[in-house]
């Protein structure tokens, strides 16, 4: 076997469970786009960064918005600019190529080295969006009619796609992907993640924080449960504020960093009232 198997093992900043590691390696090895789903804030986007860092490859991020079209990722033909240039008699108007601007996918395809292409939150876009990219991601090439050129990937990128499950993705698209659902970390993994982000944190604080955090997640009836990224923010805030941390679970200082919705903050407040 000439190709490397099991290249990716996580990085110092990104703690990964074995299942995900294996899945990443399967996707990389079989040259399938990796579709990652999971609760918001469980590190879907960070995964792509970690893969890029671990394999020493450039990361190209294409973050999808509700208005993004598949075409935007391939190339754009700036026809208005060309029109103005032609009116003003600027140079280079006769060459269409000057007005073709490659998008993120185009950038990844034309890159001289293999890179990691992150298509972030693909479900934000229109329902038809994934279908429009089928051919391009399958064949790793696309055609620009304006210049009669076919852009073929020199080094097919490692494609990571994240989704928050806001919309269903079409079957034809799913068929081409390897899939992984990032589970919410358990206490041990969470402790490891905290230590990876704050290497000099005291062990006692880690325990306190995790205890309080899982208490909030499990026993409060919340609309939006806090996730890993919110926990990490909360720890930074606690460290910066210098507040005493020995009664975290009872007092829950700076809880605004964990709970973002008004109703949830209200729930938390009410629970205090009940306790006292």
């Amino acid at each position, binding site marked *: 076997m000439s190709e490397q*198997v099991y290249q990716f093992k996580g990085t110092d900043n990104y703690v990964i469970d*074995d299942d995900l590691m294996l899945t990443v390696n*399967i996707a990389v090895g079989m040259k399938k786009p990796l579709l990652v*789903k999971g609760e918001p804030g469980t590190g879907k986007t960070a995964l792509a960064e970690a893969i890029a860092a671990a394999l020493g490859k450039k990361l190209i991020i294409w973050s999808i918005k509700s208005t993004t079209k598949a075409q935007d990722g391939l190339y754009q033909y700036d026809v208005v600019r060309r029109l103005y240039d032609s009116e003003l008699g600027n140079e280079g108007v006769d060459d269409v190529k000057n007005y073709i601007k490659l998008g993120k996918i185009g950038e990844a395809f034309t890159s001289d080295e293999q890179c990691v292409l992150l298509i972030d939150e693909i479900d934000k876009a229109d329902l038809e969006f994934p279908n429009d990219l089928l051919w391009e991601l399958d064949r790793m090439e696309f055609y620009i009619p304006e210049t009669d050129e076919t852009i073929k990937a020199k080094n097919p990128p490692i494609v990571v796609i994240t989704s928050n499950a806001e919309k269903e993705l079409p079957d034809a698209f799913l*068929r081409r992907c*390897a*899939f992984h659902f990032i589970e919410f970390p358990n206490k041990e993994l969470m402790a490891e993640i905290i230590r990876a982000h704050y290497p000099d944190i005291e062990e006692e604080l880690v325990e306190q924080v995790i205890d309080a955090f899982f208490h909030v997640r499990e026993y409060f009836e919340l609309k939006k449960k806090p996730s890993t990224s919110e926990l990490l923010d909360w720890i930074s805030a606690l460290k910066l504020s210098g507040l005493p941390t020995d009664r975290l679970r009872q007092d829950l200082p700076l809880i605004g960093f964990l709970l973002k919705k008004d109703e949830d903050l209200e729930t938390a407040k009410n629970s205090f009232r009940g306790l006292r």
Partner: protein
Amino acid sequence: MFLDFLLFLRSGGFKVSLHDWLSLIDGMHRGYHGQTVRGFFVLCRALLVKSETDLDKFEELFYQYFKNVSSESLRRELEELLHHPELAEEIFNAYAEQKDINPVAMRQALEARMGATEMGPMDLSGTDGSAPVAANPNGSRGAMPGPGNGGQMQGAGGKSIIHARGDRKFRDWRTDSTIESRQFQMAFRMLRELSRKLNTQEEELDIMGTINSTCKQGGILDIKMQPPRRNKLKVMVLIDSGGSMRPFEQICSLLFQSLLKANTFTDLKIYYFHNCLESVVYKDPSIDTEEVIKTDWILRNISSDYRVIFVGDADMAIHELMDTSYNPYRSNARPDGITWFRRFREKYEHSIWLHPQERDDNPMWMPESFVEIEKVFPMFRLSIEGLKEGMYKLMRAN
């Protein structure tokens, strides 16, 4: 290889396409399963499962199929083969004839791999697991009496992977469970029929048209306008607000909220009825007798291009539904419940019924009225899947 497992998955209602299956075989040839059950599980999951809603089903089926395979029994099986080389020779003879395999080298590879399993959890985490495969790809296929050696999963309290799978962590994601507001809204989004042909004075800039006509005029700006694209669907919802609906109050209010939030319709009308459709419907869920609309008026005045959704448990006394003579307050000239329902069905071609309760496979166990109403309206359960199917039905002529 494992064709039975494929058929088992498919018969269990887990859709695996041939394409997926071939990728799995390809993945195994490349050795990504690392000769462990756990690796095989992850490989299958990565390639065959396409959505978190299927995870639970997959884990359940995987557990069902492989629950009798433990690392202990496999090791015993393999050890027996090692102690009785003649037995092994017999089994693998076919392989040996086909391919030029050196039995001694094979045996060494097998022993090495057995040693690796005995090392415990460590053999799963990365490079080590794949080493024997890379060293002897032929051997890996020769020594395949079962799916490989079962490993221990980290953090699973020493349970083997298969038994840990029995926990079924992903049950919450199944689409046949009931729903949240966001998912409701997503389902209602399916009710969409975009059109520019609406009765509206509004206009928006037609960018492509402007560019085209500007270019045709040699660069002199020529602005084109067009009416906006809007959803032209009109929806009417009739919700049962009777006593038997009390347990489902929460889900109905969720449905109501998301209908309002997802309100991309040209018109949305919501009415309430008490238990069974009568000559009047209510504008308010509290069944306030002041705020009523004649059912007849609706049928006469609301055009037939409305999509109609009934929400209710369809659980009513059969005399309410079928016969008016039992009700002393109503004269016999008035139509009974089922007649009202039929009239709605006749007028509104696109109509469905959503029911919130679990449904029994056996119609004998469902209320009689449920069975009767099902003859009139296509019925769907108020779950993600049911709602989607319902919306799908609403978008198509019946």
